[in-house]
């Protein structure tokens, strides 16, 4: 049966996969907070004061758990124990934190990676293909993938530059609607993707979303 809001586990609350990266956790936290915070128009007069308080404290708790490696592992274990998630799901999908913390956090690595991508773009010259892509009314994930590949940029490089999990990136490139992140996240992911490939973010987001919606 449809789960009540109160019964959602932290992943369901944040609408992220069990192997979401810490970047995705942060992004989800930011987005969900924008919906439920007191000043939000999106929930205006929908909740009584104490209801909102309860929701917000659950969100805080979810965030502090999911962002902390140790707490999160313990939480995952509990979910497995109560049968919320099958054990093999956790082992099968390595949590996507990828680069070790000391690397991920150094601005230098990120900078180098971006610089490498920029260089590739400069060498190959994205010119025609990129503008052809952006001029389209509907932009598919395949179009994006083609552009990325023609520039010789690896999916991993996009991942490193954006911290969007490869699973989400792949779903975007495959137009895999059932596995796409929820629309509010999708838009911010596409924006990050556009920045990496130095494309006009608004055009890309509009075209992609339109393409998804036409089906």
């Amino acid at each position, binding site marked *: 049966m449809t789960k009540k809001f109160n019964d959602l586990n932290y992943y369901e609350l944040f609408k992220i996969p069990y192997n979401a990266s810490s970047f995705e956790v942060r992004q989800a936290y930011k987005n969900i907070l924008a*919906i439920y915070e007191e000043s939000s128009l*999106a929930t205006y*007069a929908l909740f009584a004061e104490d209801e909102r308080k309860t929701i917000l404290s659950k969100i805080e708790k979810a965030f502090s758990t999911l962002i902390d490696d140790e707490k999160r592992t313990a939480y995952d274990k509990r979910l497995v124990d109560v049968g919320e998630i099958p054990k093999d799901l956790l082992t099968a999908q390595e949590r996507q934190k990828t680069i070790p913390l000391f690397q991920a956090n150094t601005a230098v690595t990120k900078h180098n990676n971006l610089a490498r991508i920029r260089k590739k773009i400069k060498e190959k010259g994205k010119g025609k293909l990129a503008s052809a892509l952006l001029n389209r009314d509907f932009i598919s994930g395949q179009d994006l993938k083609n552009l990325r590949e023609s520039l010789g940029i690896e999916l991993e490089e996009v991942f490193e530059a954006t911290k969007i999990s490869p699973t989400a990136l792949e779903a975007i490139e495959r137009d895999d609607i059932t596995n796409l992140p929820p629309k509010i996240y999708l838009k911010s992911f596409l924006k990050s993707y556009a920045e990496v490939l130095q494309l006009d973010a608004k055009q890309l987001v509009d075209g992609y979303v339109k393409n998804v919606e036409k089906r």
Partner: protein
Amino acid sequence: MGRIYSIGGGKGGSGKSFIAASLGILLAKQGKSVVLVDLDLGASNLHTLLGQRIPQRGLDAFIDKTTKSLEDVALSTTIPNLHLISSTKCSLEIANLFYAQKLKVINAIKNLPFNYVILDLGPGINFNTLDFFLIATEGLFVATPEPTAIENTFIFIKSIYLRKLKLALKEANMWHICQEEVAKLSKGAVKSPLDLINILVEKNLENGTAFRDLLSGLKFSLILNKFRGQVAEDLGEQLVEVCNRHLYPGFDFLGNISYDSRVYESIIARNIFIQKYPYTKTVSDLQNMARRLAGAIQQPIQIKASK
């Protein structure tokens, strides 16, 4: 039988009639036969938005049996393929239709032979408005990005779901069973349709799941009108997220329609805004919406089981 879109939303003045008229015109321009039905009984004004004077005949002739078929009072307009069933001649008492009359009107609307039937509803949440809204194959809620309009929209959406559920329960002779339960919940006011469904399923009432399926078959979309730059761009998506989570799953966001002060001026001057100002952002927003409606394949919403 074509697709039936109802346009409602609780709050008065949010732009329901303007959007109904504009979408009607744009769909008609795609070469489809379209009929606009003015169901704001007692306060109808759809003809004004089409730049027309008060129509000679309308819904009243069908209700008082002057004409046998509702199609007969679908008058042509200045726009090819676009027809209007007006209700200007409906007296104020008619705003409170008898039940049998209402059923007759509802049935006739369902059988109108047009590609698109667009229902323009009045403000508020009286039973007529709710029942007319539920005729549709797809319901469009119009809100504006202001606190009171959003509050009213939530109320309207809840009322729609509860009305549908209540009618279904009554039909299945089950209303009395859950009425007690409902009364227990926050002193008679059911908080959300999800609560009610959960009660039915928890009580293991045979048809609990069937009712859930019934509600999940409703297709609803949200439109944000009079959109201005300073409003958060993803407000519409946030709202849909909230509806899906706290009211009932099955919502889509159809898009923003930009505010343009010339809309008002056009109505005063009896000009049709989308014809007079075709190159404005507002018209391009409306065009995108019409394209989406025309292209969208009707798919009943599937609820993803959480477990």
